[in-house]
């Protein structure tokens, strides 16, 4: 009688034990799936590379390129063909980037004297939302500032805002 009772209890516990194993296996499967299914987010790097590229296009060795600024004036043609001049591709049908360049005078830093932009303008609002806290599912914003001189030594301050969308490929 005693022996039968003990075996019965062991069998019930064995079934339960395998139930626990299935639970643990399920938990581990979920963890692995969550970890490896999450995409790499490279938008920050892309935004930095974009800003560097634009800066390189505008200024070399401390001077603004003659295409951008010459004879005391900013070149409207450069503004109209900005993407071609700087070798940047932004798909017109589904723009996943936005670039804005603002030129400021040292005398008045509150207002830009010349602006160039290209891409999806709607994302600028999303950058303002992320001023205090970053939101993963919003486009990635980056602002870089540099100083360059015009052909006659005029001082120009340049603000480059680069925004990268691509939310589906980088965030889950």
């Amino acid at each position: 009688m005693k022996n039968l009772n003990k075996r019965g209890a062991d069998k019930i516990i064995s079934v339960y034990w395998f139930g626990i194993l299935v639970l643990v296996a399920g938990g581990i499967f979920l963890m692995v799936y969550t970890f490896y299914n999450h995409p790499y987010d490279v938008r920050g790097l892309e935004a930095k590379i974009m800003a560097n590229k634009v800066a390189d296009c505008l200024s070399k060795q401390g001077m603004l390129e003659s295409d951008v600024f010459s004879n005391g004036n900013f070149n409207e043609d450069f503004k109209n063909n900005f993407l071609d001049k700087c070798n940047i591709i932004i798909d017109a049908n589904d723009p996943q980037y936005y670039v804005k360049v603002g030129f400021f005078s040292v005398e008045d830093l509150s207002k830009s004297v010349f602006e160039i932009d290209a891409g999806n303008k709607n994302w600028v609002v999303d950058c303002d939302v992320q001023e205090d806290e970053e939101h993963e599912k919003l486009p990635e914003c980056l602002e870089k500032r540099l100083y360059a001189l015009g052909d006659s030594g005029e001082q120009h301050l340049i603000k480059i805002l680069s925004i990268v969308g691509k939310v589906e490929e980088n965030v889950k």
Partner: protein
Amino acid sequence: MLSRDFRKNKIGQLSDAMTWIVATIVIVVILVIFFYASSVLAEIKDLEVDSKILFLDKQKTGEVGWIKEKTNFAFKLNKDNEEKINNWLEENEKS
């Protein structure tokens, strides 16, 4: 004698069940904690990319970045309003 043994067996079975209930709760709690940790780690995992190859600023080691180099060049040519310009450059840089 027989009845005493019987009572002992009952107590033994109860404590087994309680052990398993507590064990299940502990296992579930640990699984939830690990699942949360894996989702946090998934968000912070990064591609191993060398910033130097991409010509990016490497602020940690104090290297001068690509854009900062251009600014330095400009300062070498014209240092007027240096403080005002530096304050503007450092102000509100979103990175």
